């Protein structure tokens, strides 16, 4: 075999190995989704998502868990979105290159790297015990809000950074102030990508379990919350409970499949929405 054939053979073999391994990665995703969806899709119907759990959570629905998760999404976003947005705007538009900007960025990436269970510990120490909220929607929302804050800050920053400086200069040259430029030019252009980040962080909030274990989640609560100081059930915690420590694991298995399907569908829909939005608005503004 001459050297060129050997070279080509090595290349072909290597590339085929790569193709197969990457197909494997895709295969993993589809086997996880396929397995859970095929086992659980039959459980999910109108009753399942609108009824209370019954018979020690082996029958009935998951309505309170869905409502609880919605409250947590709303609460955490109400807190994290404005602050994250403002913080991202400041770091990209106002802060000067140098130590402070680098420090803020480093702290943001540090916060993003802290494990979710540590957020749980912190939320328990500060919001539940320190501020006396007890196990409540507000304590859980604040904890989850802090968890997704770095995601929102980062997407805001990156979307603003992607905008060409000529737009800013044009606006400033027309006599607009810096704030007017941000409000009328930069922010609207960056909004599609920022909203994408928001959607993805909603996905994150709806699936996180560890931070809500000790700050809000209730094992079983057959009524809906009436104030932000109430505990709630939440989808991810509900799945954890009925698949590991429920009173009747074998009998509640179908409920667990159903809950997993609902969680997966939420994440799937949010991801598709984020992608569609990114594509649609990206075309509209010709930036990406």
């Amino acid at each position: 075999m001459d050297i060129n054939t050997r070279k080509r053979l090595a290349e072909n073999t290597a590339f085929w190995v790569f193709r197969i391994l990457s197909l494997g990665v895709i295969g993993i995703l589809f086997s996880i989704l396929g397995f859970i969806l095929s086992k659980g899709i039959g459980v999910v119907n109108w009753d399942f998502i609108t009824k209370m759990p019954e018979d020690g959570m082996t029958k009935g629905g998951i309505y309170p868990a869905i409502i609880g998760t919605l409250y947590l999404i709303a609460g955490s976003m109400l807190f994290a979105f404005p602050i994250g947005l403002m913080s991202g705007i400041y770091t990209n538009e106002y802060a000067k290159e140098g130590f402070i900007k680098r420090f803020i960025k480093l702290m943001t990436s540090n916060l993003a790297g802290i494990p979710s269970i540590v957020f749980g510990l912190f939320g328990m120490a500060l919001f539940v015990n320190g501020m006396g909220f007890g196990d409540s929607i507000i304590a859980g929302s604040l904890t989850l809000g802090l968890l997704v804050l770095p995601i929102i800050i980062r997407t805001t920053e990156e979307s603003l950074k992607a905008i060409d400086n000529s737009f800013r200069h044009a606006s400033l040259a027309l006599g607009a102030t810096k704030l007017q430029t941000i409000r009328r030019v930069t922010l609207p252009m960056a909004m599609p990508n920022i909203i994408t980040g928001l959607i993805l962080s909603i996905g994150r909030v709806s699936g996180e379990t560890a931070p809500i274990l000790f700050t809000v989640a209730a094992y079983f609560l057959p009524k809906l919350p009436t104030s932000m100081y109430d505990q709630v059930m939440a989808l991810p915690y509900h799945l954890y409970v009925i698949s590991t420590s429920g009173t009747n694991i074998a009998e509640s298995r179908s409920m667990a499949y159903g809950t997993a399907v609902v969680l997966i569908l939420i994440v799937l829909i949010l991801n598709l929405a984020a992608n569609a939005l990114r594509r649609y608005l990206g075309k509209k503004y010709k930036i990406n």
Partner: protein
Amino acid sequence: MNDFVKKFIERIIEGALMISSTVTTLTVLLITIFLFKEGISLFNQSPLEGDNIITVSANNKVEHISSAQIKNIFDQKITHWDELGGKKDSIILFTFNDLSTYFSDDEIGANFELLPHKIDSLVSNTPGIIAVFSKKYLAPNFKGKIVQVENVSLTQFISGEEWFPTANPAVQLGVLPLILGTLWVSLIAIVIALPIGLATAIYLAEVANQKMRNIYKPIIELLAGIPSVVYGFFGLIVIVPMVQKTFNLPVGETALSGSILLAIMALPTIITVSEDAIRNTPRSMKEASLALGANRWQTIVRVTVPYSISGISAAAILGIGRAIGETMAVLMVTGNAAVMPHSLLQPVRTIPATIAAELGEAPKDGIHYKSLFALGCILFLITLVINLWVDYISRKRSNYSK
């Protein structure tokens, strides 16, 4: 005037933006303060549960005793005083549970009012005794000797091999099995995930065409978006039985199951970060290699991968960081036995899983509660080091490529 108001408002908004940019820094600071405040208060505290005291007879030479020694005495692994630096007498253990074997109900009195006196005479008349009882039953002029119990120390905490945070009378707070369990599970996970992730990253960056990339990217994003509790559920139902069957084990909840699951969960991080790194290789370098007659594969092996090696190592480190901090999935599939790990096919327990499983039952401000916060501190420090390390690598990279 109008201009002045406008400028004023602009200043206020700018101030508000500046303040919100300090929120992440503030949060990291607050997390540090709250975690360490609770965690550090664990140390220099007595490991004895409740208001127990430990007493021996007056002429026993032993002055100090550690919580590990107390446990060994209770487990009858230590049976003679000379093992603790005392005389040759064998150890006679007296606890509150043995009350009825030593005294009759009449001797104690209906409300235990005679008990202090009884214990006093028992301790002073039995040379080999070690008596553990509540402080309130200590007689006014007690003729025995109270033994000092060594406080919880940082070295014991890190190097201790026994984790029994609710043991009575003395808790055992050794976190070495938990630290090792965490490292084992995460490192094996990366060993599994790195080759697959790197291959996929190279494929996406160098081999695949744009169409394939557009299919792969959202799928990998979706893989990252699946909640960890769903992964845990999948692991519990699919991976655990699979491991059990393949290796013919009594239980499938093992370190290996956790590693496989964590490998899947770490894939998106590894793929995304190393793909970015590979893609950042300057075109001119690749073209130089191709112009010299190397084919694409040789260019990848000799030019692209060596050039982006620091980015790839950042991906691996970030993946390890994710794996170390992962809680729910690991909690659901590793079996959670707090023992020193000896084999991949045994149950292990990680630091995050321990916190998640035990914090709910630990009474607030008790020694167990504080020890879980101390575990949180360890976890926090590990991830902080990993983050700073990755930041350092990527900063060095960007300087290098300038």
